[in-house]
C-alpha cells in the first residue's frame, strides 16, 4: 500500500468507522429495549441499496403461507384500503420535493432518489377488483385522480375520506362504485409544505365513526428546521367528522403511521419512525397504543426520559411527562404499515395479532427491516417476539422491493403494498 492510498484509507476510516459496533437487533425488541450510548458521527453511516426490481424473483412467505402478486406494474403503490364489497384501493403516491435548506440536503435528496422508486407516482388512488376470486386483480380503474400526495384512506358510511399530505378531503361513495368524479369537500387542513419532511398522513376512523384520526409526522429529523416548523406535527390529530374541528390527541410521536384500532381493546395503535443520526442502534422504532393526551417524547426525549442533546432550548417539564411506548421494533426498520388480523384465511395463530411492514433502513451499515413481521397479541397487548411473515425484499445490496402499506382483504388474505417493486402482494395460507 503506497503511503498516499494508506492516508486516504485512514481518512475515510476516521470519517466513518469511529462508531460503536452494531448490536443484535433482537435486544431492541419489546417493552424494554436496550438503549446504547448516543454516538454522533462526523459522517453517519449510509447504506443505500440499489433498486433492481423483482425480475423473476418473489418475496418469501413464512412456512405455512404462500405469496402471490395481486397486481404488478403500479407506480409507487404505498397504501391500501379494502372497501366493504371487497374492492381494494391502492394509493399511488409520492412526497413533495423537499427544498434544499442546507448543503447536506443535496446528499439526502440523492439518497432519497436511490432508495425510492424511480417511477413517478400517479398521485391517485386505483381500484383493484378480483372478480373470479383467484387472488389476481382482473379489473383496475382509476378511483380518484389529481390528488396531492394521498396516503390515508377510510370509509365511514357513504363518506370516503382521503388524507392528502396537506388536507383531509371527503368524497361521496356508494357501494360498488369504481370511480369518483365528484369534487372532494375539505374537512380539515393538515400541516403540509413548503418543507413537509414527513409527508405521509395516515388516517383511520373511531369504531363509532364520529371521529377521524390522522397521523402527522414531524417536519425534520430533530427540529433542525426550527421548532416553529413543527406546529401541529409529530402528533396524532383527532378530527370531528361533523365539523372538521381538530385537537391534538397525542403528541411527541415523531412519524406516526398505520393508525388502527385494536379489535379487542378498541385502543388506537400506531407504528412510529424514531429519530436518526444518534448511532446505528438509536433510536428504536416502535409499535404503541396511543393514549389520549399522552406525550411520547419527540423531540425532547426518547423512550421516556432519555434526553436528546440536539434540541435547544430543552424542556425538562415536558421530558418529565414523556411516557415510553409499548413495544420496540429495533432501530431504523422504518415501520410504515400496521394491521390487526381478524380474518380466517391464515392459520389461527395469526388471529388477533398485528402485521407490521418495515420499509427498511438506510442509515446503518447492517440493513434492518425490509420485511413484514407478525407481532402476536393477547388481551390487547403484544405477547411475544415478532415473526417474519414476508422477507426476500433485499438480496445483498440489491432491493427487489420495499413493503409499505398492509391491509386484510375480504377473503382474509394479507395485502402488502411494495412501492419500489410496484406490486401489491397477497399472502394466504399455503394451499388455499
Amino acid at each position, binding site marked *: 500500500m503506497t503511503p498516499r492510498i494508506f492516508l486516504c484509507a485512514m481518512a475515510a476510516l476516521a*470519517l466513518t468507522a469511529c462508531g460503536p459496533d452494531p448490536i443484535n437487533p433482537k435486544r431492541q425488541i419489546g417493552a424494554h429495549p436496550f438503549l446504547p450510548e448516543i454516538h*454522533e*458521527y*462526523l*459522517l453517519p453511516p449510509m447504506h443505500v441499496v440499489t433498486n433492481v426490481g423483482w425480475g423473476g424473483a418473489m418475496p418469501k412467505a413464512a412456512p405455512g403461507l404462500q405469496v402471490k402478486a395481486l397486481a404488478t406494474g403500479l407506480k409507487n403503490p404505498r397504501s391500501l384500503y379494502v372497501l366493504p364489497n371487497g374492492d381494494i384501493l391502492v394509493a399511488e403516491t409520492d412526497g413533495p420535493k423537499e427544498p434544499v*435548506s*442546507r*448543503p*447536506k440536503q443535496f446528499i439526502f435528496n440523492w439518497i432519497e432518489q436511490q432508495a425510492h422508486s424511480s417511477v413517478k407516482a400517479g398521485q391517485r388512488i386505483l381500484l383493484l377488483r378480483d372478480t373470479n376470486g383467484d387472488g389476481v386483480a382482473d379489473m383496475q380503474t382509476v378511483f380518484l385522480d389529481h390528488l396531492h400526495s394521498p396516503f390515508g384512506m377510510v370509509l365511514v358510511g357513504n363518506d370516503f375520506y382521503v388524507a392528502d399530505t396537506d388536507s383531509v378531503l371527503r368524497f361521496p361513495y356508494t357501494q360498488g362504485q369504481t370511480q369518483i368524479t365528484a369534487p372532494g369537500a375539505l374537512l380539515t387542513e393538515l400541516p403540509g409544505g413548503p418543507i413537509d419532511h414527513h409527508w405521509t398522513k395516515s388516517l383511520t376512523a373511531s369504531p363509532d365513526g364520529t371521529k377521524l384520526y390522522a397521523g402527522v409526522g414531524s417536519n*425534520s*429529523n*430533530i*427540529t*433542525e*428546521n*426550527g421548532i416553529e416548523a413543527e406546529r401541529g406535527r409529530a402528533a396524532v390529530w383527532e378530527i370531528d367528522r361533523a365539523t372538521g374541528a381538530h385537537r391534538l390527541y397525542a403528541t411527541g410521536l415523531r412519524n406516526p403511521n398505520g393508525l388502527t384500532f385494536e379489535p379487542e381493546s378498541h385502543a388506537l395503535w400506531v407504528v412510529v419512525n424514531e429519530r436518526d*443520526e444518534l448511532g446505528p442502534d438509536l433510536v428504536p422504532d416502535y409499535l404503541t397504543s396511543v393514549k389520549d393526551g399522552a406525550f411520547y417524547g419527540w423531540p425532547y426525549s426518547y423512550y421516556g426520559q432519555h434526553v*436528546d*442533546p*440536539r*434540541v*435547544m*432550548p430543552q424542556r425538562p417539564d415536558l421530558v418529565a411527562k414523556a411516557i415510553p411506548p409499548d413495544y420496540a421494533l429495533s432501530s431504523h426498520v422504518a415501520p410504515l404499515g400496521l394491521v390487526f388480523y381478524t380474518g380466517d384465511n391464515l392459520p389461527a395463530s395469526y388471529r388477533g395479532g398485528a402485521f407490521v411492514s418495515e420499509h427498511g433502513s438506510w442509515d446503518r451499515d447492517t440493513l434492518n427491516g425490509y420485511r413484514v413481521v407478525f407481532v402476536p397479541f393477547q388481551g390487547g397487548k403484544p405477547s411475544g417476539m415478532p415473526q417474519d411473515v414476508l422477507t426476500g425484499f433485499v438480496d445483498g445490496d440489491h432491493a427487489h422491493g420495499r413493503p409499505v402499506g398492509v391491509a386484510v382483504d375480504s377473503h382474509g388474505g394479507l395485502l402488502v403494498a411494495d412501492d419500489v417493486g410496484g406490486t401489491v402482494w397477497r399472502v394466504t395460507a399455503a394451499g388455499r
Partner: protein
Amino acid sequence: MAGSNPRSTAQIAGHPFHPMLVPFPIVCFVGTLVTDIAYWCTANMTWAVMSVWLLTAGLIIALFAVIAGFIDFLGDRRIRNLRAVWIHAIGNAIALILSIINVFVHSRDGYTSVVPTGIILSAVVVLILLVTGWQGWAMVYRHRVGVREQTP
C-alpha cells in the same frame, strides 16, 4: 529580465490571483464564527444554517485560493525561501482541514451541530487565520511577493 521581487506565476496582467481570492474564505470563516456565536446565544436554527453555508462557500473558494497559492509557491524559488511562506502555507492547511471537519460537524442536526465542537473549531480556525493572514501580508508588503518592479 529577472527583477529583485519574488514573482507571482498565477497572475493575469501582473495581478496575482491568490490575493484576489483569499478574502472570500477569510470572510466566510470569520462569518461562521459570528453566526455560530449568534446561534449559541439565541438557539435560532437560522444562524446555524447560515454557518454551514458560509463554511461550504468558504471551502469552495479556498480550493481555488490554494491552487493559485501553490502555483506561486512552486513558480519562484525566492518565494519558497521565505520563512513567512511556510508558516502561511502550513497554518492555512491546518485551518482548511479543521474547516472540512467543521463542515461535517455543522451538518449534524440541531444544537450539537454547533455547540460545543463546531463553535470551538470555528474559533480555532479564526485564530489560525490571524497568524497566517499576518504572514500573508508580510509576504506582500515586506517581501514584495508579486509586486511590480520599480521602473527607474
